[in-house]
């Protein structure tokens, strides 16, 4: 059969499309089949796709490409191990154990593949790995980002990211971190670590901690994809809550920055730009999570975001409901930041003086002294009370601490404004 350039090109595209759709799942399964060895599994994945490029043009696209790739990868890996065993006798038993009964690629059934992706996520997010490494490893192995993409996203040097990943894999191997989904007893805490990683990735994309742009959409997209995957495989209330929170935040992304790249605060955003589909999906998930009876911090934060999303304009916002939700959140996950956000909501419900008293109490304790948003909140509340000098001092403090360019410009603008309705006091 004569292969035209077109046929060859179409087959290459088909393989690429299979790679994009399936490579992560194939990797997750290969890691399990190859005894938890990440590097061996990655080599096997590469070999499997090389084999696909070679065989599929001749034999056609297999009916189950994923199963084909898993079989091919596993077969080649065992071959590699057996060859290595000739130079290192200690590897012989590994090859034997993994290759037990495998003399040729065998059809592989799809059962358990969903579990393999969960195994991969839980392993990459194991608490025994350093926090930075969990993020890098998850983005690399679960999301398929390159080292360079991860480095760019977090404004780190690529060799630093590469080293974190190498060390993480070494620890998985040397300390024998098992490739498994945690038992029910361990699950709540281990799931917490996974959700923390996902939320960290989302936050870095949503309100980048430094640098020029306010948001980095590629990271928020990855985090949401991870959230969807987790919700599909593990529909727990807090998983749904986190996805809901991310979707609701994401729904406002376009409205959050002006055409010039400047920050637009929530009260000033054009709500027509909010993505109603994301809001509907996020709100529905938040409701499901809250009705489960196991109400956690992510679901509560999502609920707060949903209250904003439901409001046709800033003035109609149900601040009482928001304060109520913050009251519950403060019990579920107490932290100075939660207190601060509650204080801002109280100010909206009861007036700036009430909110300022709460913010001052936090700062007086010594909490959030270096948190720029605490000082900018204080500045805003002082400004509303006409306490111009205090407002300026607070904004200046915030400016000294803020690292993200658009935020700094916003604070600088506040400082440059003539006082609104100022009095001679303050």
């Amino acid at each position: 059969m004569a292969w035209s350039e077109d046929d060859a090109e179409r087959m290459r595209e088909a393989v690429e499309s299979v790679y994009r759709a399936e490579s992560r799942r194939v990797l997750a399964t290969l890691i399990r089949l190859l005894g938890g060895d990440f590097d061996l599994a990655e080599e096997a994945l590469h070999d499997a796709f090389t084999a696909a490029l070679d065989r599929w043009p001749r034999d056609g696209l297999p009916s189950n490409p994923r199963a084909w790739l898993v079989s091919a990868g596993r077969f080649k890996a065992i071959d590699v191990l057996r060859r290595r065993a000739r130079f290192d006798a200690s590897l012989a038993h590994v090859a034997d154990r993994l290759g037990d009964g495998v003399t040729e690629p065998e059809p592989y059934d799809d059962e358990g593949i969903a579990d393999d992706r969960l195994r991969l996520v839980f392993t990459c997010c194991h608490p025994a790995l350093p926090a930075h490494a969990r993020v890098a490893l998850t983005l690399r192995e679960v999301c398929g980002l390159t080292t360079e993409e991860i480095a760019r996203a977090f404004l780190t040097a690529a060799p630093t990211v590469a080293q974190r990943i190498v060390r993480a894999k070494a620890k998985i191997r040397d300390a024998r971190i098992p490739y498994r989904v945690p038992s029910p007893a361990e699950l709540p805490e281990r799931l917490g670590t996974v959700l923390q990683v996902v939320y960290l990735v989302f936050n870095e994309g949503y309100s980048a901690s430094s640098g020029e742009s306010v948001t980095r959409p590629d990271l928020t997209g990855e985090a949401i994809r991870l959230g969807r995957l987790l919700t599909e495989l593990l529909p727990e209330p807090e998983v749904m809550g986190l996805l809901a929170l991310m979707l609701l935040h994401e729904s406002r992304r376009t409205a959050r920055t002006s055409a010039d790249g400047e920050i637009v605060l929530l009260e000033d955003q054009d709500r027509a730009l909010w993505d109603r589909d994301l809001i509907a999906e996020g709100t529905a998930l938040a409701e499901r999570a809250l009705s489960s009876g196991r109400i956690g911090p992510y679901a509560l934060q999502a609920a707060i975001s949903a209250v904003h999303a439901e409001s046709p304009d800033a003035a109609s916002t149900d601040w009482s409901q928001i304060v109520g939700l913050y009251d519950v959140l403060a019990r579920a996950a107490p932290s100075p930041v939660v207190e601060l956000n509650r204080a801002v909501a109280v100010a909206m419900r009861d007036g700036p003086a009430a909110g300022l008293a709460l913010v001052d109490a936090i700062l007086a304790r010594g909490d959030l002294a270096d948190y720029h948003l605490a000082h900018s909140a204080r500045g805003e509340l002082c400004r509303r009370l006409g306490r111009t000098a205090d407002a300026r001092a607070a904004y200046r403090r915030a400016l000294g601490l803020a690292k993200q360019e658009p935020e700094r410009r916003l604070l600088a603008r506040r400082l440059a404004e003539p006082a609104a309705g100022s009095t001679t006091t303050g």
Partner: protein
Amino acid sequence: MKYLCLVYSEEELLEAVPDRECVAYDAALRADGRCLASEALQPVHTATTVRVRDGRVSITDGPFAETKEQLAGFYMIEADDLDEAIQIAAKIPPARVGSVEVRPVRPIRETVVASRLREAGGPSSAGV
């Protein structure tokens, strides 16, 4: 696989953990066959630190470093993986007042033997 569990604690806090409890846990681990060696240590004031530099032996009184938590004891355990080792470590009674470091053992005897075999042209010599 072997893991060493190093038990660290502030000494005053250890007083809240009765020896009876530690002995009972140790006995349970040994009965399971998962404990290969374990001891409680005398308090840190009994420690002496030995260093040799340029052929000279230097002896100092006390532990190698003055830290808030000091080494109080150890367990050498056998576990299938880190999660199992962590579960065992979490039940060590002083874990509730101090810290337990869990570190995998490096099988240097085996790797040294294996490299000697390779150098001597062991099983690989036929295949090269």
